[in-house]
């Protein structure tokens, strides 16, 4: 999608006036819809729809050997699929760069032990651990992908149930794990501090959050702020423009404030989820 100069001018003037094209103020977020447990063969899954952005996340678990440099930690891996179904711009290899950017940002955001404690995924020091594969599928792209993906990932990890290991038999180098068959006997992950990302878009000399597709087009550059708990866990800058130090601190503060609000709203809604509710997508 391309915008003509007049449309961009309209968006720009609106942002300067603190009245965006859908009536929101600079730091307002659009309502979104969340759903968990949508993929039956995954250990945990979530789907998030934010206006026209639609993201599906599934978590799968495998047994693996920990990295030699961190024998006490489990593994977590993110894979983003920007298929051409989401937007024609992703056709061919068009979405690859964006997909890699999103998965790298997620990996760094989750790498800190303060954000996500991967030691809990370790079963046997240096020998056995769980590896989480977080597969992210972009179903529709209507702007603000980073935020939507991070919320959906957090919800999917919340939904994830890790099988319970009853006992471990070690026979020389041969390790035998006895995993419980009981579906009710499983552990949940602690995602209290899992990072939430907020994209702060710079349009003109103002910063906005939750840009829609048109606003993303008008922006020279944006900063993605990942906040876990009350700490910023990672920052990623997109776009071609450069940022003045004053603008950078300003946008970090804005992103931080909004991320705290977003995290609160998310934990509130996650606590409301009841099991076995049948609704919406795929059901």
């Amino acid at each position, binding site marked *: 999608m*391309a*915008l*003509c*100069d*007049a*449309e961009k*001018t*309209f968006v720009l*003037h*609106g942002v300067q*006036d603190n*009245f*965006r*094209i*859908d*009536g*929101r*103020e600079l*730091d*307002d*977020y*659009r*309502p*979104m*819809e*969340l*759903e968990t447990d949508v993929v039956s063969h995954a250990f945990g899954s979530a*789907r998030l729809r934010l206006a026209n952005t639609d993201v599906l996340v599934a978590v799968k678990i495998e047994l693996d050997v920990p990295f030699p440099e961190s024998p006490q930690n489990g593994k977590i891996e993110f894979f983003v699929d920007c298929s051409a179904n989401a937007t024609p711009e992703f056709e061919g290899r068009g979405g690859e760069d964006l997909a890699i950017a999103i998965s790298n940002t997620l990996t760094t955001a989750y790498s800190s032990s303060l954000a996500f404690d991967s030691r809990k995924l370790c079963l046997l020091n240096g020998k056995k651990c769980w590896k989480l594969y977080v597969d992210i599928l972009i179903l529709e792209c209507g702007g603000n992908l980073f935020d939507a993906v991070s*919320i959906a990932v957090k919800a999917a990890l919340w939904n994830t149930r890790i099988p319970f290991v009853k006992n471990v038999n070690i026979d020389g180098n041969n390790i035998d794990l006895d995993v419980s068959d009981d579906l009710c006997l499983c552990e949940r992950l602690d995602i209290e501090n899992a990072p939430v990302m907020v994209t702060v878009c710079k349009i003109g000399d103002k910063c906005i959050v939750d840009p829609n597709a048109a606003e993303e087009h008008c922006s020279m550059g944006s900063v993605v702020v990942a906040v876990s708990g009350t700490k910023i866990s990672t920052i990623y800058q997109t776009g071609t423009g450069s940022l003045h130090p004053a603008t950078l601190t300003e946008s970090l503060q804005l992103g931080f404030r*909004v991320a705290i*609000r*977003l995290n*609160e*709203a*998310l934990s*509130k*809604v996650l606590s*409301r*989820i*009841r099991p076995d*509710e*049948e*609704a*919406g*997508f795929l059901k």
Partner: protein
Amino acid sequence: MSKNIQIRLASQRINTSVPGNQRYPKIFTPGQVITAQNEFMRGHGTYEENGELKASVAGVREQVNNLISIRPLKSRYNGEIGDVVVGRITEVQQKRWKVDTNSRLDSALLLSSVNLPGGELRRRSVEDEHMMRQFLQEGDLISAEVQNVYSDGSLSLHTRSLRYGKLGQGVLVKVFPSLIKRSKTHFHNLPVGASIILGNNGLIWICTSINNSEESVGGFVQNLEEVVPRQERETICRIRNCILALTQSKMMLYDTSILYAYEESLKYSVAELLIPEAMLDIAILTQQRLTMLENA
């Protein structure tokens, strides 16, 4: 506007359908048998299986003599001559522009079917061909009329009227083409201080009120310096959100329904119109007023 961020659960999704008063035609779903008699011919949106005629798309049945076709509810825009469309320039070629009009193929706008600045009877020279990008360039929005439909379904457009041409500052909204009600005029100057172009192709353009006196320049100028005042901006954004509210409940869009929705929406702030419950409320109130108007 509250500063709370709304995350809702899919299980608490509201039912957005609005009960209408008129009788609805039967809707066929893909694979549904239309008729078992074989004296009918199969048209678009149908196929034959085991001697039965079945629908291949979800839509309503249309019959001309022995020809049965199913018109899909959701589809890309199928152009007809005389339709008003809003489109975006995707390519500048020799003697023609390619325009994205939300149909299956890009439409063509020939250099010979636009009014160039400087009068209607002006000859088109080679210089004009070189200047094409200065009139319209990639990304520009235009309003135009369908002049011709080619055999492959692609459209040829023209802007040979002062109403048509390049669009200035405003907002574009995309809806299903089937929601746009056909009427005599698709250009409306709403009394609330905004004007809308309801393109038959499902693209709706909302901008500030157009003064008819100023407009007679041929439609290739844009004023990028002018700042739309806050009041008018709020009106434009409110209309945008109202149209999306009506679209959510699959209601027909025309000047009266949009105006009613606008009036009903005044109790909400513009940003509150993004909340599904508020959108449904407006759609229901609009439907009631439309029903009252019909019965009056």
